[in-house]
C-alpha cells in the first residue's frame, strides 16, 4: 500500500514505473551467476579453514598423493601475493595485515588456511578433508569485556591492547546542558552481531589466459574496478593485465564490497595454472567467513528540558570489528558512522562522544546495509522515547519538537553532517496518521489488564547520508577517498544506445533506472538502451556500488554523458537538417527542428557510415563523463517508521500488527524500484530487530552458522507495509535524487524496540538489546517485575 505519491504517471524517463529490464532472464531461470558460468577446463576449489577461533598453526600437512598444483598453502602463496593491509588516517589507528591464507596464527573460525583444487566441488572437499592442520589453541577474545580486560589475550600480538582505534569529540557544552536539564536519562543498548546473508554467497573464478597475457577474475563483487586494482597491486602486476567481471549477483547488501582473501588467493594461483579455477562460497562459509556486521554497544545519556527540548547527548560507543580490518573500509567504519548519526535528525547542539573499535576472534566486520546507523538509530531513538516517557509526552511529539525544520535547511548537525533538504517533522506527522496512531492508542487502552497480551506503538526516525563524496570519506579516515563515478554512452549505427557504467547492479535494478536516465534525455523507451555494468574491460573506472550511491553517482555520470552525447547529436542534426542547434529538440527517437526532423537511426547511419556527409563534426558517437558532485557532503534521505506490536507476555513473542514508513528519497527515478528498496530494507531491519543473531561461544565458536540456527525473516514475519512518500529534491544532485538503498533497514530496530517498550511500560520493562528474542523480552519483563515486586509489597 502506498500513499502520497503524486508523481504523474509517465511512460518512461525519470519517475516512470518502468518494468525492470532484468526480470525476463531471471523469470526464465536464465540469469548467469558465478556458479553458473561455464568455462572449458574449469576446476573447483574448496578451502581448508580454521575450526579454531584463536591459535597458532604448527603444521599444515598435504597428502603425499595430491596432484601437483592441487593444494596451495600460505607457504606457496607467500611469493605470489602480498597480504592485504587496510590503513586509515585516523590518529592511533592500528593496522594488521589480512593474510590471504593464514600462516602462523589463526584469528577466527573460518579463516582460510589452504586451497584444494579438483574436478568437482565434492572432490575438492574430499581433498581438503585430507589436508591436516595442527593448531595450538590460544584463549579467544569474543565479547567486549574479553577484549577490553586488563590482561586480555591479544588478537594481534604486536598491539598494546585490542583496540583498532579510538575516536572522540566534544561539541558545545554537554555539562552545561546536563545542569540545565529537567530530566536526564542514561541507557545501555546492544545490537548483537549479524550475518549479512545475500542469498547467493560469494564466488570467484580466476583464469590466466597466456596467449592474451590476461588474468580474468569473475567475482560476485559490488566493486569490480576496486578489486581489479587491488588484485594487480597485491600480485605485483600492472592492472592492465587484469580484468574483473561481476556477472549476475544474488544480492550483496555490503558483504561483497570489500576485497577478500579468497579473491586474491584464486587470482594468484590461477597465474600459475593453465586452467580456470572456481570457488563458490557455501552457506557455512558464508556464515563464518563473509564479513559480518553490527555488534555494537552504546552507553547513552541524554538531557532534556521540561518542555521536551533536547539539550545534550553523550554517547560511548563500542563496536566489535572482528579479527581484521577489511579493505578499504577498516574496522572503524561502523563506529565513525555511528558517532556521526547519534544526534539523528535533531537540533541538539551539545554532543560528546567516544568510539572504540575493538578486535576480537570473530570474522572481520564489513559494511552492511545501513553501516553504523541501525545501531545509532536504535540507541538515540530508544533514548528519545525514554525522555518522552519521563516527561509525559507522546514520543512522536518529542520528535516533532526537536527535529530540524524545513526552514533551517541546509542544516549542519552537531556532528558536522550537512542535512541538505526535507521536512523531517512532516514525516513523523504522516507516519502517525498512516499507522492510525489514535486508533491504536484506543485499542491499546482497551486491552484488559488480565490479558496475557499487550499492544505497543513505536516510532523510529533517522537521516541517511547517501552518495557522499571525497571529503566525507576523508573525515572518517579512509585511505581511499571515494567520490567520482564514470559513464560512457554510445549511439550505435542503428540508433541504439549502450551505456557502460563501472558500478555493479546486484539486484537493485540499475539496468532499468540508468536506462531511464538516457531515456529521459533522448526521449526513447528504456528498451533501446543496453546498460553494461560489472566488467572492467567494458566500463569506465568506477568505485562501485555501496553507500546508497549508485543511482546518484552513476546516474549523475550517465546524465552527464547523455547530455554531452545529446549535444553532439544535435550538432550532427544541425548539419544534416540545416537548422541551428538552439532550435533542435530530442523527441520520440528523433531530433526535431522547426522545419524538419531526423530519426536517431538515420542520423547515426549517416554519421557513422558516411561521415563525409557531416562535415565539420569530429568523429565518434559517444561520450564519457565523470561525475563528482560539487557539494560532497551527500544527499540525506530520511524517514520515520511506525510499528505496532503485540507482545505475548507468556512467551515474550513479538508479533508485528502494523508497520508504516514515510520516507523522502528526493526525486524518484522508478517508484517500483524505490518501493522494493524500502520494503526489502525494512524486512532486513525486522530481521535485525527480532530474529537474526550470530551467537559465539566463549571459545569463539560460531553457534549459528547455518540457516537451521540463524533465523531469517520469511513471508510470515513481514506484514504488508504502509508506505507514504515525501518528495524533496536534493539541491546537491542531478534531478534531485537521494540514495535509498539502505534507509529501510535502519529504523526497524528503533521503531520495534520502542513499540515493545511501549507495550511493556506498565511493567517497567525495556527492549534495549537486539534481536528482541522471546527469551530477551520475557526475561526483561520478569526482571522488571522482580524489581518492582518488593516496592509493590511496601506500598500495599
Amino acid at each position, binding site marked *: 500500500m502506498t500513499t502520497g505519491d503524486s508523481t504523474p504517471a509517465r511512460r518512461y524517463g525519470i519517475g516512470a514505473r518502468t*518494468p525492470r529490464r532484468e*526480470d525476463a532472464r531471471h*523469470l526464465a531461470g536464465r540469469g548467469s551467476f558465478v556458479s553458473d558460468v561455464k568455462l572449458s577446463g574449469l576446476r573447483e576449489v574448496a578451502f581448508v579453514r580454521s575450526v579454531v577461533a584463536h591459535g597458532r598453526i604448527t603444521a599444515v600437512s598435504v597428502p603425499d598423493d595430491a596432484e601437483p598444483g592441487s593444494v596451495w598453502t600460505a607457504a606457496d602463496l607467500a611469493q605470489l601475493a602480498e597480504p592485504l593491509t587496510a590503513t586509515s588516517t585516523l590518529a592511533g589507528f592500528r593496522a594488521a595485515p589480512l593474510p590471504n591464507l593464514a600462516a602462523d596464527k589463526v584469528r577466527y573460525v573460518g579463516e582460510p588456511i589452504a586451497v584444494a583444487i579438483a574436478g568437482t566441488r565434492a572432490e575438492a572437499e574430499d581433498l581438503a578433508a585430507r589436508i591436516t592442520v595442527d593448531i595450538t589453541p590460544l584463549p579467544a577474545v569474543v565479547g567486549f569485556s574479553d577484549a577490553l580486560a586488563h590482561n586480555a589475550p591479544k588478537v594481534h600480538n604486536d598491539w598494546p591492547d585490542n583496540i583498532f582505534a579510538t575516536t572522540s569529540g566534544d561539541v558545545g557544552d554537554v555539562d552545561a546542558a546536563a545542569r540545565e536539564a529537567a530530566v536526564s536519562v542514561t541507557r545501555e543498548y546492544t545490537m548483537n552481531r549479524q550475518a549479512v546473508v545475500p*542469498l547467493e554467497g560469494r564466488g570467484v573464478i580466476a583464469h590466466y589466459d597466456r596467449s592474451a597475457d590476461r588474468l580474468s577474475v569473475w567475482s560476485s563483487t559490488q566493486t569490480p574496478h576496486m578489486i581489479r586494482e587491488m588484485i594487480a597491486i597485491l600480485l605485483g602486476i600492472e592492472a592492465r593485465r587484469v580484468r574483473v567481471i561481476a556477472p549476475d549477483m544474488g544480492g550483496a*547488501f555490503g558483504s561483497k564490497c570489500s576485497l577478500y582473501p579468497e579473491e586474491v588467493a584464486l587470482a594468484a594461483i590461477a597465474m600459475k595454472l593453465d586452467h580456470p579455477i572456481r570457488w563458490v562460497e557455501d*552457506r557455512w562459509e558464508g556464515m563464518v567467513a563473509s564479513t559480518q556486521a553490527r555488534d555494537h554497544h552504546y552507553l547513552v545519556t541524554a538531557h532534556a528540558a521540561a518542555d521536551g527540548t533536547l539539550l545534550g547527548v553523550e554517547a560511548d560507543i563500542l563496536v566489535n570489528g572482528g579479527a581484521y580490518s577489511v579493505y578499504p573500509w577498516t574496522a572503524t567504519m561502523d563506529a565513525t558512522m555511528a558517532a556521526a548519526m547519534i544526534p539523528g535528525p535533531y537540533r541538539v547542539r551539545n554532543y560528546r562522544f567516544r568510539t572504540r573499535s575493538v578486535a576480537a576472534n570473530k570474522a572481520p566486520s564489513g559494511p552492511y546495509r545501513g553501516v553504523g546507523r541501525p545501531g545509532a538509530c536504535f540507541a538515540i531513538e530508544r533514548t528519545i522515547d525514554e525522555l518522552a516517557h519521563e516527561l509525559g509526552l507522546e514520543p512522536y511529539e518529542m520528535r516533532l519538537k526537536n527535529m530540524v525544520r524545513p526552514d533551517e535547511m541546509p542544516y549542519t548537525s552537531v556532528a558536522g553532517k550537512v542535512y541538505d533538504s526535507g521536512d523531517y517533522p512532516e514525516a513523523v506527522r504522516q507516519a502517525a496518521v498512516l499507522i492510525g496512531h489514535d486508533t491504536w492508542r484506543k485499542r491499546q487502552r482497551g486491552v484488559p489488564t488480565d490479558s496475557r497480551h499487550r499492544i505497543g506503538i513505536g516510532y523510529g526516525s533517522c537521516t541517511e547520508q547517501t552518495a557522499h563524496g571525497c571529503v566525507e570519506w576523508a573525515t572518517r579516515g579512509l585511505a581511499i577517498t571515494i567520490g567520482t563515478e564514470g559513464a560512457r554512452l554510445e549511439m550505435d549505427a542503428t540508433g541504439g544506445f549502450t551505456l557502460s557504467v563501472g558500478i555493479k547492479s546486484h539486484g537493485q535494478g540499475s539496468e532499468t533506472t540508468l536506462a531511464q536516465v538516457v531515456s529521459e534525455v533522448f526521449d526513447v523507451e528504456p528498451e533501446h538502451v543496453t546498460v553494461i555494468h560489472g566488467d572492467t574491460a567494458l566500463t569506465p573506472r568506477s568505485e562501485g556500488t555501496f553507500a546508497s550511491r549508485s543511482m546518484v553517482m552513476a546516474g549523475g555520470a550517465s546524465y552527464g554523458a547523455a547530455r554531452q552525447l545529446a549535444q553532439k547529436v544535435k550538432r550532427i542534426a544541425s548539419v544534416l537538417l540545416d537548422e541551428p542547434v538552439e532550435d533542435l529538440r530530442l523527441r520520440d527517437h528523433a531530433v526535431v527542428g522547426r522545419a524538419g526532423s531526423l530519426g536517431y537511426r538515420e542520423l547515426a547511419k549517416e554519421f557513422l557510415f558516411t561521415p563525409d556527409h557531416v562535415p565539420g563534426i569530429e568523429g565518434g558517437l559517444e561520450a564519457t563523463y565523470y561525475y563528482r558532485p560539487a557539494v560532497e557532503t551527500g544527499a540525506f534521505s530520511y524517514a520515520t517508521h511506525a510499528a505496532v506490536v503485540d507482545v505475548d507476555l507468556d512467551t515474550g513473542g513479538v508479533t508485528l500488527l502494523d508497520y508504516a514508513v514515510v520516507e523522502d528519497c528526493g526525486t524518484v527515478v522508478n517508484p517500483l524500484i524505490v518501493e522494493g528498496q524500502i520494503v*526489502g530494507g525494512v524486512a532486513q531491519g525486522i530481521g535485525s530487530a527480532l530474529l537474526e543473531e550470530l551467537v559465539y561461544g566463549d571459545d569463539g565458536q560460531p553457534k549459528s552458522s547455518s540457516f537451521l540456527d540463524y533465523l531469517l525473516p520469511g*513471508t510470515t514475519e513481514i506484514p504488508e507495509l504502509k508506505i507514504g512518500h515525501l518528495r524533496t529534491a536534493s539541491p546537491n544532485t542531478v534531478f534531485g535524487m537521494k540514495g535509498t538503498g539502505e534507509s529501510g533497514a535502519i529504523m526497524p530496530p528503533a521503531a520495534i524496540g520502542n513499540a515493545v517498550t511501549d507495550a511493556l511500560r506498565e511493567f517497567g520493562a525495556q527492549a534495549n538489546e537486539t534481536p528482541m528474542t522471546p527469551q530477551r523480552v520475557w526475561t526483561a519483563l520478569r526482571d522488571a517485575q522482580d524489581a518492582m515486586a518488593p516496592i509493590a509489597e511496601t506500598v500495599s
Partner: protein
Amino acid sequence: MNEVTVHLTVQHQPRTMIIPARTTLADLLRDHLGLTGTHLGCEQGVCGACTVLLDDLPVRACLTLAAACEGAEVITVEGLEGPDAERLRACFAEQGALQCGFCTPGMLLAGYYLVRGRQPLSREEVCQAMSGNICRCTGYNAIVRAIEAAISQGIEAETAPAQTVPRSSGAPAAGTEE
C-alpha cells in the same frame, strides 16, 4: 561402485544418467544437464531457492539424491510452461516480486503449485504456504501480492468448475496417489 544409473524425465524429456551416487538432484540438474536456473542458496533445505517439481510436488533439490529420483518426472524453472506459469511470471514483474533473481526460481515453482491448485487463499494462507522460501531482497510484500494475483487470475480464467481437493491450501494436485 560410487556410480549409479538413474532414469528420469526432465522437462518431459526422458534421460538416462550415469552419475556419482552422491550427486543431489540440484547438482544433476546444474552440473550434468546445464540447467543452472535451479539455485543453491543453503544446501540445508531452508532457503527454498532450489525448489523444483518432482512428480508435480515442490521439493528441495538440494535434499534429494538424484539416484532417488528413479522414474520420476522433474520440472525446473526453465521448463515451467503454460498459462499458469506465464501469468505468475507477469504478476512477478508487475508487482516487483524479484530483485536479484536468486530466489526467484524457487519462488516461482512454489508459487506455481499454489496457482495451479485453483483454490482461493487468504494472504495469511499464501504466507504460510510460501514460508519455506527465503528472499533477502524484496521483503516479500510484492511476492505475496504477485502470487495472490496469479491465483485469482488462474481461478477467473478457469472455464470449467474448479475441481476441489479437501483442505486444499496447497494440496497435491495430481499424480501422487499410489
